[in-house]
């Protein structure tokens, strides 16, 4: 209806709107009634030990009413045949806003991230009260880092990886197994003292977790070198599941589904966060609080995430990063330009995996406990969703998407006020996934290339010129 162009539409001939709109809405309402009647109208309840039916006419009426009036409203406004379809060229409002606030947004976000613990502590009036917010900050930053790590593989090199959680798991288990290993502990106890390994394990294992995960990235990379797109996605998906199943079933090594507990906690570069005389609080003359460790962990993950971003930005300007992006655009052209696609792909897998390993190591030290249940496909899907929604290849988009997704999911837990509208039985957290799904669909409809779709060239001859990514429909992506 609305796709009529200006040429074919009769000039100013108003088409009757209200009648058809009403009819259409009525039909939609009837269909909704038919569908929702059995689905929402009845509820099975147990009455005196037997199954019985309860009726929910008011809820049914509300739902059908939403459909009817919503459809009517759309028919009269957006879908009205008299409405001139707006055609506009040039950057969209979103892109213009991005160009306008663009230069300031990164420093502002960075400053907010650095000051976040202080803001949380002061606004909530104390260290202990701010625990929830800072924990949430740690969670978001973990996903920001994972998103940036996967962004190297998916966003830059264009290799769809559905098994990224495998590297997260490798990093976490590297730390968990090494830090709890008795022989290593005894070895270092003999050399440097009894508490050396417990105090330094994290800082020694962090690079090792990255290296191990990177090696696993290459191990995954070899068999999938010839694959692209859907086929690659399936194999990486399987790889993620294999790692998890090995962790469950190799009980002697990984302790199976029971997981590994009492992993040594993070230390302030060798100084433990405890109440003892050698602890962090005593050395710095502060009253002891378990929150010191949490705040410190926040800064550790912030530093790790920034390291990921920094390395990615630098790599993009180096030949290897340029080769990743070229690989995403056109593999055949890459080869004919003399780029070794084998090493390029492997380096992308290894680099992405390495940052996943760092994040996994951090996860293990924060939780103090790892089990295969933490590394399910859901995590891979969530990280991939963050990368896709944020805009593939865009650092800032991925960060915003991670904050919105993880933060948004948490916020939905706290919609307590809704119980005042829908009654005390209403549990908003049950609708989290529904709202989450709607949000994802909405972003993909309005911003099909993600929140930040503009790719900044890494080099300019004279001055930068903003060309919206939306204009580049040709080719890939």
């Amino acid at each position: 209806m609305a796709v009529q162009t200006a040429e074919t539409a009769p000039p100013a001939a108003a088409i009757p709107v209200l009648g058809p709109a009403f009819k259409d809405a009525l039909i939609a309402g009837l269909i909704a009634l038919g569908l929702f009647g059995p689905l929402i109208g009845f509820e099975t309840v147990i009455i005196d030990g037997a199954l019985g039916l309860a009726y929910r006419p008011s809820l049914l009426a509300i739902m059908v009413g939403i459909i009817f009036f919503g459809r009517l409203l759309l028919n009269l406004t957006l879908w009205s045949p008299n409405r001139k379809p707006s055609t506009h060229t040039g950057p969209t409002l979103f892109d213009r806003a991005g160009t306008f606030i663009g230069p300031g947004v990164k420093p502002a976000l960075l400053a907010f991230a650095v000051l976040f613990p202080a803001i949380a502590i002061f606004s909530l009036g104390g260290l202990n009260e701010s625990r929830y917010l800072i924990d949430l900050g740690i969670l978001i930053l973990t996903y920001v880092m994972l998103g940036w790590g996967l962004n190297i593989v998916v966003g830059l090199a264009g290799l769809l990886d559905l098994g990224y959680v495998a590297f997260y798991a490798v990093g976490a288990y590297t730390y968990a197994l090494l830090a709890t290993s008795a022989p290593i502990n005894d070895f270092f106890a003999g050399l440097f003292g009894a508490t050396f390994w417990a105090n330094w394990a994290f800082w020694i294992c962090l690079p090792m977790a990255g290296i191990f995960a990177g090696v696993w990235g290459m191990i995954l990379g070899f068999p999938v070198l010839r694959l692209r797109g859907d086929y690659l996605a399936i194999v990486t998906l399987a790889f993620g599941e294999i790692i998890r199943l090995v962790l469950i079933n190799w009980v002697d090594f990984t302790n199976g589904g029971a997981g590994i507990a009492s992993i040594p906690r993070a230390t302030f570069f060798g100084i433990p966060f405890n109440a003892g005389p050698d602890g962090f609080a005593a050395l710095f003359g502060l009253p002891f609080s378990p929150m010191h460790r949490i705040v410190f962990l926040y800064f550790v993950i912030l530093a790790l995430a920034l390291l990921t971003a920094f390395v990615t930005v630098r790599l993009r300007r180096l030949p290897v990063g340029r080769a990743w992006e070229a690989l995403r655009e056109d593999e055949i052209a890459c080869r004919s330009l003399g780029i070794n696609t084998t090493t390029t792909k492997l380096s992308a897998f290894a680099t992405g995996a390495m940052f996943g390993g760092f994040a996994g190591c951090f996860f293990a030290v924060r939780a103090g406990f790892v089990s295969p249940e933490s590394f399910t496909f859901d995590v891979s899907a969530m990280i991939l969703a963050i990368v896709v929604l944020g805009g593939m290849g865009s650092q800032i988009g991925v960060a915003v998407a991670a904050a919105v997704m993880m933060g948004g999911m948490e916020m939905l837990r706290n919609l307590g006020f809704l119980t005042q509208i829908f009654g005390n039985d209403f549990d908003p957290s049950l609708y989290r996934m529904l709202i989450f799904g709607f949000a994802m669909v909405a972003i993909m409809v309005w911003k099909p290339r993600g929140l930040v779709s503009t790719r900044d060239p890494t080099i300019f001859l004279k001055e930068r010129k903003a060309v919206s990514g939306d204009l580049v429909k040709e080719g890939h992506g």
Partner: protein
Amino acid sequence: MSETLTATTPALATPARTDAPMLQVRGVKTFYGNIMALRGVDVDVYKGEIVTLIGSNGAGKSTLMMTIFGQPRPREGSILFEGRDITQVPTHEIAHLKIAQSPEGRRIFPRMSVFENLQMGAAVDGFAHFDADLEKVFVLFPRLKERINQRGGTLSGGEQQMLAIGRALMSRPRLLMLDEPSLGLAPLVVRQIFDAIRELNRTEGLTVFLVEQNAFHALKLAHRGYVLVNGAITLSGEGRELLERPEVRAAYLEGGAH
């Protein structure tokens, strides 16, 4: 079955060359599964020449081009570049031997800027002569300079073709291989691009191997030409001489000379 014109018409014969050809394709047979796409092709390209390969759709022109670049590999035959057997050399290493290719369908990087596309071309050369080469490409295709910070995907078809050729030139090639540079372009743009190729050949002695469907323009431009039919070379000779041949006129030029 390969008929060599130079043998039948000695008056127009190319002076017999004593040097070895720069690119020597001998008896190359390429298969797609069980289908033989190339049935034993012999092609020579000498230093400083423009050689064109013409043929209709599905004759195997692009297959020959890709086979020289090692994708797919020939099942039989050999390919020598400057005396070195490159039949089994990996594609990316062939590029390091200074053979540059502008593949069929341009294959520029659409989301990267024109500048970045050109940089990718210079990767083989190690950026040693980047600025000078960039200037040379801009002299050849001034349009690219105007579009330097624009994304490759936003260029017009002709500009994309210029970018593909420019990108190939950034590697300082000894042999430039072009696959259908005139495909889908307006006649005026085709002339621009062919003029540029001629210019490169005349001023710098660049060796060019040109695969074309646009037989009229290609044969007018080229020193020598080969006609490929159903995976085999049926005719070869000087470009202008081939233009006069009735078989060539009937098959590729009637109504097509524009």
